[in-house]
């Protein structure tokens, strides 16, 4: 039986050439690539790449003519060198960034797809965007008129008004920083990044702004409600911890104040309840006295 013939497995070149088209990647790989892509197109990274290409490594090495570039190890399909030639360092950076983008695109193109994964990817994009300092700062450019904000607070309440202002300011901020990303994409001859991606970035900026304004607003409210003494103490402690190379931790101070406020509120509510009960008792007694007097007058 052991010798019963089974045809041997053979290598198939055509099959191998379609390997990446035929095989899918896991959810974590797709989310990882989405995060990488978000980081890649974040304004801080785009700015960093721009500085590297224009003022850093991009200015090093010999100048390669367009012909030399095409035969060099840095040449990639679809990339072109200007007529006056290209610095070797610049060509190297172009190739590196091209490879990075190609690897991300390849992983994303092997996604299994589906609504759940799409939603998770959108969440990952938001997470990636919120980690970029320029994105966060741009969501707080004060372009929303104060009077209109006051009107919204009156009509919608503080949280909803903050969300509306956040969406507007986040979208405006994203629109303002988008030229950095779009410009760098053009510089890198990245044809995959176009106005549709810019529009998506602005949308994400809006969502991000809404979330940040509501989140930071709540945080700010919590801190603002603390007593002046607690705030001063927290700031002093933070400075002291920073100067002595310790980790900044003022949570116990804020927490103690919160507990104190909670106890005070509880006491206040107790007193109010007591006062109300006394008032009710007095009313009841008055009514009884009045009934007795009325009956005696009648007889």
């Amino acid at each position, binding site marked *: *039986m*052991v010798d*019963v013939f089974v*045809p*041997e*497995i053979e*290598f198939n070149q055509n099959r191998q*050439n379609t*390997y990446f088209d035929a095989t899918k990647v896991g959810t974590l790989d797709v989310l990882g690539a989405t995060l990488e892509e978000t980081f890649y197109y974040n304004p801080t990274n785009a700015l960093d790449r721009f500085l590297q290409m224009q003022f850093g490594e991009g200015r090093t090495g010999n100048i390669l003519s367009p012909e030399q570039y095409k035969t060099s190890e840095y040449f990639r399909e679809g990339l072109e060198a200007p007529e006056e030639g290209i610095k070797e360092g610049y060509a190297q950076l172009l190739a590196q960034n091209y490879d990075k983008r190609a*690897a991300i695109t390849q992983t994303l193109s092997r996604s299994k797809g589906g609504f759940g994964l799409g939603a998770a990817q959108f969440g990952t994009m938001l997470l990636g965007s919120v980690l970029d300092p320029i994105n966060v700062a741009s969501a707080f450019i004060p372009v929303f008129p104060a009077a209109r904000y006051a009107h919204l607070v009156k009509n919608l309440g503080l949280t909803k008004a903050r969300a509306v202002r956040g969406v507007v300011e986040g979208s405006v901020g994203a629109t303002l920083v988008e030229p950095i990303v779009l410009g760098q994409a053009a510089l890198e001859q990245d044809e995959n990044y176009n106005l549709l991606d810019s529009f998506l970035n602005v949308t994400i900026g809006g969502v991000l702004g809404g979330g940040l304004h509501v989140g930071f607003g709540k945080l700010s409210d919590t801190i603002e409600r603390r007593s002046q003494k607690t705030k001063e103490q927290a700031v002093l402690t933070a400075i002291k911890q920073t100067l002595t190379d310790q980790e900044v931790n003022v949570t116990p101070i804020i927490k103690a104040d919160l507990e104190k406020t909670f106890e005070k509120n509880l006491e206040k509510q107790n007193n109010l309840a007591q006062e109300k009960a006394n008032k009710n008792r007095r009313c009841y007694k008055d009514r009884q006295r009045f009934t007795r007097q009325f009956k005696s007058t009648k007889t």
Partner: protein
Amino acid sequence: MRRRDTISLADNIFLSEPNNLVAGDLFTSNADTVKASVKALPKTERDSLVLKVKENLANYSESISGQISTNYDFAPQSATTARVDHSIAMQNLAYDLAGFYYVAGNLSLDEAVKKATDNLINNKFDFITPGDADGVVRLPKSIVGSPTSYEQVLTSVLKDNDENKDIFNNLSFVTPVNDLGKYKSEVLSAGKFITKSDNSGVILVDRTSNPIIIQSEDEQANITQKVFELSFEQVASATEIYQSTPGTIRAKQIAVQNFLKDFY
């Protein structure tokens, strides 16, 4: 030998193992009278027979046709018509044999199926699943050492620790178009071993069950290509190294990786 135009799988079994007593049973189970008796069984029993035979031969079928039941969009490369034909022919043979044991003997359905599949296949092979990709490797019972130790060794070859990555980085694979360095890492994380047709060793295959080809260049710039394969003898030697290496599992795996790298 029965008078027919072609040599059937049952004939092959008889030819390859003339002393195996199951061959006689196989010919009997193919007799028209026996087949008619099996066919006369209630449909539920026949269906149950088919399912149980498939179940008991699942490992063998997968080891032959290349893990069709793994989560993959297409049948793998190894599932060529001839290989699939073989595993289906073996299932049909086992069905007839189990049916014969069931109708002619005093065995329950489960016992009849077990006896048939054991006599045909399972008494001759052990099945192991090295690596994370659940690839089924069939090991002839004649190998030296325990199946578990073979699984440990083959799993070490597919481990993506730094030392193994270095070994793989030094190998030149024939890679797909637009590889971008991903193919090798996917072989390490999702590669599978498939038993060679002559049961003398294993071949490393990718996720589509395409064999991994290693390319090398000699001093005269002659390029040679060979399939990434390991014989069971080499694996047996590696099991001894695995067992004799003191320390953690990682240390044992590294020792095995260093030993086997010269055979790649």
